[in-house]
């Protein structure tokens, strides 16, 4: 079923947590390992505007539906960052504008070159490059939903679980957009399928890998995706990705976990 962009934009809201008792974390705090994972997630959410930058340098930005989606998506993801930062604040961990700026500063030359690289690749590949971005976005959003669900299950903290459930619900609509775009573009072009398959299999890494240390990525993936349940969750994401035209057999999430040494 085609994604209804008008309905999405009309119903896009910032995630709300006014009714949740975050003060309860003062008496029942999350353990340090969980806070480290939450911090990682907040960084990823806040970094959406920078991912948007890379998307905008490619042919993606010229399309009205994509433009509308990115406007709402950016805002929703920003508020996911704010929500997670609010939980971290209850643990006296500050993630404010200055902290985020400092994190972005640390990214160095790779960050400066990313939009150049994306733009050049977009020009070389042409319109089919949009399929890469949409498939990549789908993989990232599926991973994000899985991460939030796993975190909620593992922590068994009712307030956190409810907040993560609300965030995951919004991420589900992002998945729907990216997936519908990816499917349509991949189905229409074998070149798009080949380029996307190559890009995902060679370069995809868990969302947040480009802005966090390998140690942090390993920590988060080990925290959330270890053991049989973690692998089952990873397999489900891979099945969703490989179910798209031309991507049969891809196991990019499980491969990434293996590479990180996350125990199955």
């Amino acid at each position: 079923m085609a994604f209804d962009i008008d309905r999405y934009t009309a119903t896009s809201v910032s995630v709300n947590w006014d009714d949740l008792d975050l003060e309860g974390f003062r008496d029942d705090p999350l353990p340090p390992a969980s806070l480290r994972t939450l911090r990682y997630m907040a960084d990823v959410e806040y970094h959406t505007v920078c991912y948007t930058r890379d998307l905008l340098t490619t042919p993606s930005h010229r399309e009205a539906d994509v433009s509308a989606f990115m406007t709402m998506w950016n805002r929703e993801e920003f508020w996911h960052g704010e929500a997670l930062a609010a939980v971290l604040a209850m643990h006296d961990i500050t993630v404010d504008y200055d902290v985020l700026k400092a994190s972005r500063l640390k990214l160095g030359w790779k960050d400066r070159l990313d939009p150049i690289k994306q733009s050049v690749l977009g020009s070389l590949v042409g319109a089919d490059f949009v399929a890469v971005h949409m498939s990549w976005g789908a993989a990232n959003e599926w991973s994000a939903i899985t991460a939030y669900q796993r975190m909620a299950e593992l922590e068994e903290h009712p307030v956190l679980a409810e907040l993560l459930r609300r965030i995951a619900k919004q991420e589900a609509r992002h998945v729907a957009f990216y997936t519908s775009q990816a499917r349509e573009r991949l189905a229409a072009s074998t070149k798009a399928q080949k380029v996307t398959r190559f890009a995902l299999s060679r370069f995809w890494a868990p969302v947040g890998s480009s802005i966090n240390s390998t140690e942090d990525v390993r920590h988060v993936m080990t925290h959330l995706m270890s053991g049989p349940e973690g692998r089952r969750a990873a397999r489900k994401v891979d099945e969703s990705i490989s179910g798209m035209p031309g991507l049969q057999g891809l196991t990019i999430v499980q491969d990434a976990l293996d590479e990180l040494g996350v125990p199955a």
Partner: protein
Amino acid sequence: MTRSPSTEPAEPAEFDVRAFARTAHGSLRDDLDLEAVAASPLAPDLVAVLAALATLEGATMAHLRNVLVTNTHKDARVTAFLVTWAFEKFWIADALRAIVDVSAGASTGQGAGSAGGEPPLHTGTAVSGGAASGGRGPVRRAFAGITQGWAVIGAHMAVGLVDDRMLGTAYARVAESSTSATLDAAVARIVAVKERHTRFFEEEVQRRLTASPRAARLARRELRRTAWPLGAAALTAEQRAAFSRFAYGGPEGDARVVELERGIGSLPGMDARTAAIVRRGLAGRRAA
């Protein structure tokens, strides 16, 4: 290695970006009496101007692209503002398009307006790549951004401020021309939403261009090189010309342009030459 932001203003900003984001204005349709517009359609030339304004307000992604490939993307406070700014402008564009659709539909006896239904939502403004860049694509801007450093943020804030003032002039002209209470109310609503954008840009321009001669220099250069108003690349040449004639044409238009030019010239570090170039660059202005 990234240089430390030594050109950053010393004094803290007063504009509360978090509060702005928290109270962002979404759809304005509940504030629009579209039935009244359908019952009494607007004049075609006014509808054309509103359509142009809708395109201009909706053309945020192309501008964001040009801005985010530079150091501006690293300033989390500025990006937080821009995310909400883009959201609010999307809904301003939607409100304008709703009025256009209903009025145009009522005039022709076709479309959602005349049938009594709501006009469809519109998606964002699409802008062709080269035109949106104003001749400077993302690669070129990204490379330039490497040497521009933090000072480029001030330049982008100046562009945002001048664009707001240009569109503000157009909205004032629409209000002057309007004989529709519904349109008057819609324009007032839109202007109220945009007031916070202007206030943010004004403060940032004052802080950054006062603190840094380099930022002021980059701002002068950016203002001279920008195709005005932002998003004009999404309009046809005829639409740009018609828009400029409406907003800046005639003796009243001359006065507004002089006022715009004076305002630009009075910004920190700005010079008369830059202000004059911006005035001349108002897209499709009436022939001299």
